[in-house]
């Protein structure tokens, strides 16, 4: 301690105590992107948790209107679940093709993923249209309001996921599998699989348990 003090006193310019880093530690570009995106997904998870809580509280309030047993078609939901599950595995194949730096295969698998996503959305919109046509609109009962909010929010996420997917396909085909594009594909991969995880909650708590109520 005293040695340092002496040294500092004798040579104040060279050995001045500094309280900041003279050179910023080097961070690779995008090194923290995955963690940041994961934190976003966790906050998104909270949004869905609140919507699930609302559905849990209001899901039994039919206001003398139709209940899940009259409204839901489980075969359609099973088909929808299959579409989302297929899109998850095909996105996985796109990531594996990306690891092999195979741009054509990556794009092909991404396109297939997008088609499955569109099929999912199409079936969901058909279901919504069918419900509204039958008079089971969001205004009908608290159960239907919370149902449309929860399932609709998930559908909206899938919609934006597809828009993002198409954007990335354009970017990959223009710029190739550069590190920035790989990072973006990895973020979308997490987003896409996360939506599938949320859908597990939706088909379990809304549709399957709804049929048992």
């Amino acid at each position: 301690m005293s040695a340092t003090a002496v040294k500092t006193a004798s040579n104040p310019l060279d050995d001045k105590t500094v309280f900041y880093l003279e050179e910023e530690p080097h961070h690779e570009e995008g090194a923290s992107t995955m963690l940041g995106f994961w934190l976003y997904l966790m906050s998104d998870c909270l949004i869905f948790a609140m919507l699930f809580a609302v559905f849990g509280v209001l899901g039994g309030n039919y206001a003398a209107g139709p209940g899940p047993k009259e409204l839901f078609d489980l075969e359609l939901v099973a088909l929808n679940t299959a579409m989302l599950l297929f899109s998850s595995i095909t996105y996985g194949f796109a990531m594996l093709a990306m690891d092999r730096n195979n741009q054509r295969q990556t794009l092909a698998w991404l396109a297939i993923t997008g088609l499955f996503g569109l099929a999912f959305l199409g079936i969901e919109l058909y279901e919504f249209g069918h419900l509204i046509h039958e008079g089971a609109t969001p205004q009908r009962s608290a159960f239907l309001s919370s149902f449309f909010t929860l399932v609709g929010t998930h559908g909206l996420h899938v919609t934006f996921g597809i828009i993002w997917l198409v954007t990335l396909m354009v970017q990959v085909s223009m710029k190739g599998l550069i590190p920035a594009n790989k990072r973006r594909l990895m973020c979308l991969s997490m987003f896409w699989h996360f939506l599938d995880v949320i859908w597990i909650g939706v088909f379990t708590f809304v549709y399957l348990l709804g049929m048992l109520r």
Partner: protein
Amino acid sequence: MSAANSDHSPDSHDVDHLGHEAHNHGSFKSYMIGFVLSVILTAIPFALVMTGVLPTQATALIVMGFAVVQIVVHMIYFLHMNSKSEGGWTMLALIFTIIVVVIALSGSLWVMYHLNTNMMPTHDMTQMVG
């Protein structure tokens, strides 16, 4: 870039770099395991509810159990969660989120259930008619 930096901070940067490169996207095998498990874990609850072979209570419990297992399967095989990625920070964020979600969900359901049973006048149809 890497060489210049490794003299500078040999402790952290190399590890970080390696960890970044080894960002594990899974393999064909792990994706297929996850997919097959998901199909099984989805098909059984749907079949149970659609056929109604078991009593309602048992079906509900089994369906919820399968959902939890399937979420874990997705986390491991599709989202590649493990305790080491990003130095454990993703796992920490996940655990925190799960705690908040459990508190919010169980709290909401519990409070609102009691509110419903305690605040609502008990509907007695005979009195209403009279």
